[in-house]
């Protein structure tokens, strides 16, 4: 008998040197040198990397010839030099979903399926791939995060692989799959009594105290850029064009914001043309501060205390809420809040029509898209992409008591015949 060896893809980008880009404050515009810092010293606003507008950019053929990972878009990621870690994350399937398109009443619909993102089965592998390279470049030996689950999985997995210590903080009531899917990599996992927002506050203080590279705290400027690769991949996988609408779940609001940035950057580079997609954000009604912000037309998020089974997006005080709202409004898109019951139905609808099993956040996306279609915001001529950001095996609790019981029979053909006849 022969055994097929499973090996990692051969890393093709190797360099001992990697330099994170300097950053600029999104509020006051003050530029700061590259550092594991995410807030402006002048106004405490958020920092983001500054790209050299004169840097050489690849054309579509050059990108297409590169390895199938998010690093094929490295000119739009926040480094000079070559990354050395997590070289095989990203480039997930874009799945044509005609049955779901018919259900929504739109012309075409695709699933951007990050439920199979490598290595930890969520889109958080993208942002961590960026952040962990930043951590290595800054010489940090410990990474970590505040997480609702998926990020915990991604940081634990990628830190283990990189040989970095990890301190990971989660609310104490997360789903078992998210906890096991973190602990298996043997990080320091800390369960904090409270909501994600309590965890986030503790982590912010921890980053200040211990000098760790907490990916969504003090490495956040670099981390967030990884989300743009969802937009880049959508463009490339559609044949270097944009869809008319994109629907994504919202937690901190970063993904929607970075989708808008990613589509704009590819348009500026001449890789795609035409009207930018309308961006639609979805949240569970039990934690919908960004939905409420867009609906109200306000400027600042009103924080809420989350009460939803969609724990992976249960952030009551979203850091990028204001920017997400701006991105949605300026794109001509809108928002949708859905009930927990509807998000479970969304999980089932996606599974039954596309063969993709998503977690609760994906259920929110599907249910939100249905609501937007029913409102006429998604139109019959639309070409829509739904961002499915996590894997259903992580949140099986959401389906407990919802799916039908599977019958148990003896291994006898007459019992199967009886069962078959009953089902006919």
């Amino acid at each position, binding site marked *: 008998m022969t055994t097929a060896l499973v090996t990692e893809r051969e890393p093709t980008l190797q360099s001992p040197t990697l330099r994170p880009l300097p950053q600029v404050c999104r509020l006051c515009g003050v530029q700061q040198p590259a550092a594991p810092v*995410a807030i402006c010293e002048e106004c*405490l606003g*958020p920092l983001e990397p500054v790209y050299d507008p004169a840097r050489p950019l690849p054309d579509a053929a050059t990108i297409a010839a590169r390895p199938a990972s998010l690093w094929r878009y490295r000119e739009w990621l926040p480094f000079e030099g070559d990354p050395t870690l997590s070289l095989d994350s990203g480039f997930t399937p874009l799945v044509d979903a005609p049955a779901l398109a018919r259900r929504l009443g739109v012309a075409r619909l695709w699933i951007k399926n990050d439920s199979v993102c490598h290595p930890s089965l969520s889109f958080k592998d993208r942002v961590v791939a960026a952040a962990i390279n930043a951590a290595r470049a800054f010489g940090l030996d410990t990474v970590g995060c505040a997480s609702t689950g998926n990020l915990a999985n991604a940081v634990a997995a990628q830190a283990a692989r990189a040989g970095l210590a990890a301190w990971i903080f989660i609310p104490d009531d997360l789903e078992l799959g998210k906890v096991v899917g973190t602990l298996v990599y043997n990080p320091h996992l800390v369960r904090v009594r409270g909501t994600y927002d309590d965890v986030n*506050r503790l982590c912010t203080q921890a980053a200040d105290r211990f000098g760790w590279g907490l990916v969504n705290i003090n490495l*956040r400027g670099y981390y967030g850029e990884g989300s743009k690769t969802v937009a880049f991949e959508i463009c490339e996988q559609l044949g270097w064009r944009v869809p008319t609408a994109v629907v994504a779940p919202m937690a901190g609001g970063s993904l929607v914001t970075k989708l808008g940035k990613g589509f704009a950057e590819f348009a500026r580079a001449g890789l795609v043309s035409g009207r930018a997609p309308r961006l639609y954000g979805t949240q569970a009604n039990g934690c919908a501060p960004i939905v409420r912000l867009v609906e109200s037309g306000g400027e600042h998020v009103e924080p809420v205390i989350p009460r939803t089974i969609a724990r992976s997006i249960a952030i009551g005080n979203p850091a990028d809420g204001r920017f997400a709202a701006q991105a949605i409004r300026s794109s001509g898109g809108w928002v949708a809040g859905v009930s927990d019951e509807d998000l479970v139905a969304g999980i089932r609808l996606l599974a039954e029509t596309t063969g993709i099993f998503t977690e609760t956040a994906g259920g929110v996306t599907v249910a939100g898209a249905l609501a937007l279609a029913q409102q006429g915001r998604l139109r019959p001529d639309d070409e829509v992409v739904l961002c499915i950001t996590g894997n259903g095996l992580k949140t099986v609790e959401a389906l407990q008591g919802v799916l039908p019981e599977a019958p148990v029979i003896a291994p006898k053909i007459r019992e199967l015949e009886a069962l078959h006849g009953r089902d006919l």
Partner: protein
Amino acid sequence: MAVTFSLPTVLAKLADGQSTLQVSGATLGDVVAQLADRFPRLAPRLRDTEGGPYPFVTFYLNDEDVRFRSGFATPVTEGDEITVVAAIAGG
């Protein structure tokens, strides 16, 4: 009412390097005003030109975001702990 006021490093630099301070006042707003008087360079980081909090700076009174209470009008009592955290984090 004497309370303990904790600052992140980025703001402690503007308070003579002190990350923990003892301050008194009847409300959070009073406490912030007193700190603003003691450390003029810190003042514009804690409150805007109209005297209110910034959207990107969160004040916690004993672990609770004061936006769920009465903001700067929230009363404080002896021994309370106030923590300032930059809101740009997480997600």
